[in-house]
């Protein structure tokens, strides 16, 4: 027993160091996988408040640009309103629309903290559980896709952005309809890549890349970017497709969080698929 105490006394500095490292590294790597605890993220109340105050000070720097972006979106939305259509047929009365049912709802939010140069970049939003945000919802802005909600507290949410290693959003190249997974290599916040595109397809440069809507997180057709370059992958029949993002994440301000009203239905249906026996 005395030897044990002597051992602890002798190595106490190293033991303290060791436990601190273990603690820090476990929180770091477990957060990358799955956010279990709330207390060390920007979604926690104290850090969230600090960041809100900071955002209140700095948000006006981009006011001109975000106003004109909002104005453009308003213009576009206004054009969809019934008032801006001329009525061609009279005598029709709309009672209850049975052809269309609402599938997606959108919650507006503001980015109050963001990084773009780290290997994995997370954005903090000023909306949370109280506003109906849940983990796994998609986030986009008026110019393009942003990411997926990773962690939520009562009034804040952390978004795992497109600028992370394992984002894997289902995307589709228009107009040929090829699809692959969106990746980011950590170097440039304006460029990402798509994996899994086979090189027997002819792809035009600057063709549009949009979300595919396969997993039900994003509706089909949210802009991601444009194809900038095609490089052959050595030793594999694949293209390495470089995408130029349509959104500049360094100056991202206003975003929308997507709620899919039919998500449960889709997940339930897809869970009935029998697992592959051969693998």
């Amino acid at each position, binding site marked *: 027993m005395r030897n044990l105490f002597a051992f602890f006394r002798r190595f*106490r*500095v*190293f033991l*303290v*160091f060791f436990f*601190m*490292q273990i*603690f*820090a*590294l*476990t*929180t*770091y790597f477990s*957060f*990358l996988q799955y956010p279990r605890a709330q*207390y*060390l*993220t*920007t979604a*926690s109340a*104290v*850090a969230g408040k*600090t*960041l809100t105050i*900071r955002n209140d000070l700095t948000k006006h720097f981009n006011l001109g640009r975000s106003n004109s972006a909002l104005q453009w979106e308003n213009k576009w939305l206004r054009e969809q309103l019934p008032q801006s259509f001329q009525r061609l047929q009279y005598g029709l009365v709309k009672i209850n629309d049975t052809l269309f049912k609402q599938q997606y709802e959108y919650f507006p939010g503001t980015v109050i*903290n963001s*990084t*773009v*140069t*780290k*290997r*994995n970049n*997370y954005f*903090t939003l000023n909306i949370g559980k109280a506003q109906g945000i849940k983990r796994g919802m998609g986030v986009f802005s008026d110019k393009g896709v942003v990411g997926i909600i990773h962690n939520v507290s009562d009034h804040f949410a*952390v978004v795992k952005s497109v600028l992370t290693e394992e984002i894997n959003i289902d995307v589709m190249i228009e107009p040929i309809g090829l699809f692959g997974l969106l990746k980011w290599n*950590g*170097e440039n916040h304006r460029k990402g890549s798509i994996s899994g595109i086979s090189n027997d397809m002819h792809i035009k440069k600057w063709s549009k890349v949009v979300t595919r809507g396969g997993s039900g997180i994003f509706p089909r057709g949210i802009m991601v970017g444009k194809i900038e370059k095609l490089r052959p992958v050595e030793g594999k029949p694949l293209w390495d497709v470089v995408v130029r993002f349509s959104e500049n994440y*360094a100056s991202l301000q206003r975003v929308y969080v997507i709620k899919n009203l039919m998500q449960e239905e889709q997940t339930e249906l897809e869970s009935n698929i029998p697992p592959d026996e051969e693998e």
Partner: protein
Amino acid sequence: MNVAVKYGLRFLLFVALQALVLNQLELGFGIQFMVYPLLIVLLPFEMGTIALLVVAFLMGILIDAVSNTYGLHASSAVLIAYLRPLIFKTFAPRDGYDPLKEGNSYDMGFRWFLYTFGLLLFIHHFWFFLLEIFRFDEIPFVLQKTVMSLPFSFLLCLIIQAMIVSKPKER
């Protein structure tokens, strides 16, 4: 000024500066300013390693909580706090450290400061970026980030040091 108050103020200053200002600056090319290692070097010479570790850990965790890094800063800060006594011993002056002085470039000379602080800052940056990226095939990217950030952090630390440490009077 009371020593505890002095270091407490510095602690708050470094945490606020790092978390609220420097972590938001993104210059590209892998440049990232990290200045809080300076606080760990400036702590008194006679301070025990466990106390150093606790201070470094608290500082790292506080910075992490505000910048979505979940323990990266804490891990790097604790590592250099653990290595500080070893490196100080290696570069010790012939007659040991004067407990009235502190580890800044005025008291100990610029050469001493360059060696000890430069080495600690290098270890800190390398460890930080290594954990942040954590892939063997991206080691060149880790080195690029370390080499690009190191001179910027070092220069910024010199400027901050000039602002918070009072120069000794010429004899």
